[in-house]
């Protein structure tokens, strides 16, 4: 009896193997076709290579906006479980984020904003349409968000980043507490941020409404964002519903401190070109 059961299970397993492979291949080929549409305006070789490797690092955003592409999610949809559930990541990336990217491209099409970097668009955000402001912000902010998270995230920052956090806030614990407060008290849709203050080179915490960010000329306190936490309800509602505080506190278990550190280091290399 036992032997027969084993045989049946073995056969079922064998039969389902090709289906698993097909499903995996389908996912792979879908990612491939979606990934890199041909950019419209490329002027130099370095721009071409910047587009090919676009992952939303600080330097990647210096290229003309027309050349920006929608980057792949750096991990699987379920990779941030249990902190952020698969369905939330999938809809957030594939619907919300992609929607901002598409609408941003549409809003700048045929205008001179196509030749400008997002940094220079943000620096004059008070002079552009609401569609550009909302969608450029939505596109940029989410690239940062995905890159700031990792399945292997969590723990504490180290090295240079820990030093500047300690210098700016007194301790890592005080920093987290202040950041959480900013994230929990932002009323309605928005973001909480850790940014570099261009004047003092110290770090500061702020929160912004909707898809605004600290690079925008409309912000009271402007700076270069290193870490962003999305507190729109779409970022957490399927799993946490009204309990935003639980999402905010769980978020730290997936923070990719290497990414935050590399953005900090990169800021000093590109600061002069963020105009």
């Amino acid at each position, binding site marked *: 009896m036992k032997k027969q059961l084993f045989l049946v299970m073995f056969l079922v397993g064998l039969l389902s193997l090709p289906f698993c492979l097909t499903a995996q291949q389908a996912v792979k080929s879908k990612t491939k076709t979606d990934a890199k549409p041909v950019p419209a305006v490329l002027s130099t070789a370095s721009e071409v290579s910047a587009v090919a490797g676009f992952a939303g690092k600080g330097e990647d955003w210096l290229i003309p906006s027309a050349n920006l592409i929608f980057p792949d999610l750096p991990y699987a949809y379920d990779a941030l479980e249990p902190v952020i559930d698969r369905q939330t990541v999938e*809809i957030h990336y594939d*619907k*919300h984020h992609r*929607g901002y990217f598409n609408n941003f491209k549409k809003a700048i099409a045929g205008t001179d904003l196509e030749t400008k970097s997002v940094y220079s668009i943000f620096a004059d955000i008070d002079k552009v349409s*609401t569609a550009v402001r*909302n969608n450029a912000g939505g596109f940029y902010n989410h690239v940062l968000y995905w890159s700031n998270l990792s399945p292997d995230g969590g723990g504490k920052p180290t090295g240079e980043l820990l030093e500047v956090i300690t210098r700016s806030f007194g301790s890592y614990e005080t920093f987290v507490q202040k950041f959480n407060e900013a994230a929990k008290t932002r*009323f*309605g*849709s*928005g973001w909480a941020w850790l940014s570099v203050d261009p004047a003092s080179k110290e770090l500061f915490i702020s929160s912004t*409404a*909707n*898809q605004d960010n600290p690079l925008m000329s409309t912000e009271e306190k402007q700076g270069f964002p290193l870490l962003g936490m999305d507190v*729109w*309800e*779409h970022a957490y*509602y*399927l799993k946490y*519903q*009204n309990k935003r505080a639980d999402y905010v506190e769980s978020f730290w278990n997936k923070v990719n401190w290497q990414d935050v550190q590399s953005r900090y280091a990169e800021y000093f290399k590109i600061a002069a070109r963020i105009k």
Partner: protein
Amino acid sequence: MNFEFPALPYAYDALEPHIDRMTMEIHHTKHHRAYFDKFTAAIQGTDLESKSLTDIFAEISKAPAAVRNNGGGFYNHNLFWEILSPSGGGEPIGKLAEAINAEFGSFEAFKTKFNDAAANRFGSGWAWLSVKADKSLCVCSSANQDNPLMDVHDCPGTPILGLDVWEHAYYLKYQNRRPDYIGAFWNLVNWNKVSENYEKTLK
């Protein structure tokens, strides 16, 4: 203190399938409740305790953010539950229908304008049908928990119909598809109540 947290005028699952039971329960017992609790805490011991919500909103620019956000959240949801009904839908009749036709040309044209206001409100907020001081109707939207009774609003009036477009109002069922939620909303509108609200503003 003369403010009370209202019971929902129907069961949590009464608006199914357009608004699901879980959304209604969390929306009423958590979100609405929290606005009420924080509002009453924010006005406790101040002279706002003896004022009506309408009077508080008329000078909201002088009140702290906690009063504005939570007072708005309390009032807006009170109105929202009242203008929905399991037996809602259809079209308005009588004086309200006449006023809608006079202002917007037709009921369909009004709906299109309201749908646009609701779909285009970026981030959290509300879409409204309000009666202005000159008694004409107007469609507009507001951010977060603001409303047309507030002195900060660019389209002042008395709201008679409101649609919550915070993601918490629809995300469990509709996720990113806000337009589907807006479309479903019309099947629930309690036009008798909206007419009653309208006629009250004429007195």
